[in-house]
């Protein structure tokens, strides 16, 4: 009984602190932009459109971006990806799966001080080229890798 009460108090306290921090403007100005969800970018079907929706003109291929993932994914519902960028001033990393209904799977904003590398897991409907898109110093770069899928992750 008593321990339950503790939990409730702790929970609401935590939320209040978050609210206060937000209203006091403790977060960086950039975070207000980051909170918005780029609907246009997530509705694009190919990389060129995604780059445009993210505010760039075109992207150049770069060997400084490394995609680490299985070459053959047995289960398309959970395909692990690690994307690392060695480009100086990497600001954002995005992961695109070409043959998914919408290409863009996830995008990450990398503030200064954070390593330009993220790991996450995405769904893949079928064998497809996967593109890592990196924004560094205001320019866009990409690298592509094919991942084979034996069992799709978007079926019912």
């Amino acid at each position, binding site marked *: 009984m008593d321990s339950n009460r503790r939990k409730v108090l702790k929970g609401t306290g*935590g*939320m209040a602190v*978050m609210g206060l*921090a937000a209203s006091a403007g*403790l*977060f*960086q100005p*950039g*975070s207000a932009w*980051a*909170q918005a*969800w*780029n609907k246009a*970018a*997530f509705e694009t079907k190919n990389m060129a459109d995604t780059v445009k929706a993210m505010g760039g003109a075109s992207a150049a291929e770069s060997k400084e971006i490394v995609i680490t993932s299985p070459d053959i994914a047995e289960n398309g*519902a*959970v*395909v*692990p990806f*690690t994307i690392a960028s060695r480009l100086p001033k990497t600001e954002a990393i995005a992961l695109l*799966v070409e043959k*998914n*209904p*919408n290409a*863009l*799977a*996830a*995008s*990450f*904003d*990398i*503030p200064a*001080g*954070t*390593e330009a*590398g*993220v*790991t*996450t*897991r*995405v*769904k*893949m409907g079928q064998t497809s080229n996967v593109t890592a898109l990196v924004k560094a110093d205001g320019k866009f770069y990409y690298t592509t890798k094919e991942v084979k899928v034996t069992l799709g*992750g*978007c*079926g*019912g």
Partner: protein
Amino acid sequence: MADPMKIRAAMSGDKVEVKVLMSHEMETGQRKDSKGATIPAHFIQNVTATHNGKVVLSAQWGPAVSKNPFLSFKFAGGKPGEKVSITWTDNKGDKRTDEATIA
């Protein structure tokens, strides 16, 4: 309210390595139920990680991110004992914040 996240934050050299496992359906909006009706999309759209009030990573996700999403990244400037806080918001406006202490 969704289930709590599992967060691990540990020093890795001079950087803090953060690993997060979230509990979320991540429904794509592409699947149909047994009656043929489309299951509405329900997925995490925004993830923000903060350390000492400073954003160390923010992410925008589409429905293609796997169910029960996993995220891992490293940032500089953290010390053992300090807190890392992760917040996600989904497309239905649901929200959850959890924190972990850097080991």
